[in-house]
């Protein structure tokens, strides 16, 4: 979903052709998202089918087709920009499943797993903190904000890990049943 609207948003600034969209998009997100060019093209086609973008009339060099935003596309984009996100919270499923299963299985060492996961999160925080600082140093405040979001999420994950460990500590017997 955000790829669709990301493309719409980029085209709102100026008409772009497919490859430009890819590079700009990746640059906008600071390299955190490597997009498949094929995915870009298929999304553009779908957007054109829905009447939100339209190819320009003249063709550029090498036969690249620049697209531009239609009026409908602009309205749709504006509507999307105004709306807050109401999607349900997305959680990391894998670790959750892992922990649940480890708790059930006889050979699952939940404490060990939690400790290791914690270490991962700490290192992640260190790396993210460094990244955030470098972004600010380079003047990329928008990127720094994105990284800040990641930091907060990681902190949340860490807190969650701690809560899980606390729960086990308090009621060690309960971990196995259910």
């Amino acid at each position, binding site marked *: 979903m955000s790829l669709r609207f990301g493309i719409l948003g980029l085209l709102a600034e100026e008409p772009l052709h497919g490859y430009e969209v890819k590079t700009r998009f990746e640059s906008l997100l600071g*390299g955190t998202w490597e997009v498949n060019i094929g995915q870009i093209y298929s999304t553009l086609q779908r957007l054109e089918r829905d009447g939100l973008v339209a190819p320009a009339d003249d063709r550029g060099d090498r036969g690249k087709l620049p697209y531009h935003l239609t009026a409908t596309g602009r309205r749709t984009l504006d509507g999307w920009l105004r709306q807050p996100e109401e999607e349900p919270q997305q959680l990391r499923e894998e670790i959750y499943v892992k922990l649940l299963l480890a708790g059930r299985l006889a050979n699952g060492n939940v404490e060990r797993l939690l400790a290791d996961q914690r270490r991962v999160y700490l290192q992640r925080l260190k790396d993210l903190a460094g990244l955030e600082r470098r972004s600010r140093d380079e003047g990329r405040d928008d990127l720094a904000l994105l990284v800040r979001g990641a930091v907060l999420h990681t902190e949340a994950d860490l807190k969650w890990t701690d809560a899980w460990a*606390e729960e086990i500590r308090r009621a060690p017997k309960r971990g196995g049943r259910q």
Partner: protein
Amino acid sequence: MTVMVELTDVRKLYNGGSPQAAVDGVSLTMQQGEFIAVMGPSGSGKSTLLNLIAGLDRPSEGRVLVDAVDVGSLSETELARFRRARIGFIFQFFNLLNNLTVLENILIPAQLAAVSPTVALDRATALMNGLGLAEKQRLLPGRLSGGERQRVAIARALINQPLLLLADEPTGALDSHAGEQVMERLTELNRRGQTILLVTHDAKLAAACAGRVITLSDGRVADDSRLKASPEVAPSDILRLRPGEAAP
């Protein structure tokens, strides 16, 4: 590498005779130049541990060696002298003296140690310049922001060129921007060789600054991890934006 701090089976019982221990059998070694963060929830004993290392409290059992000196064996007066020569302290609530100027606050440990006034003033000036406090030196703490006050506290902690810098929740009373500045100062200090022990519940602070994170739980060491600083990490290694589901 010299050993700066060495704790051997240290226990500290709660004051008031409760059989529960605030610190329950902790052993650890800290090398010179290390930056250690001690984390843990409320009641895990991290502040008590800090107090024991600083000589502000005596262990019930075990031995606390700081710079090879057994802290538990010193008298109150000797401890005070020991502290002002070797240990610098930063608190969560700054704990500046409110009726003294910034400069006067910074100078206090040096004056207590009877350092010559000229030497003390030189050190203070250098510290203030390094911390961006030079224009504010005649102000009273009441006129400073939280971040500025903490910087004064840092200068005060460093004026006697301590071997060990102890920080107890240094960003706890600061907004995120000021907190980050403090983080950066601490990191910078450590880069220049200052040994730092930091107590905090702020995971980001601990992970970002420290090279080693010790987690306490119920007065015991639950974890002791070393973290690597990797400036070459690419963003995509650590951060991915998740694409949403296809729009209806």
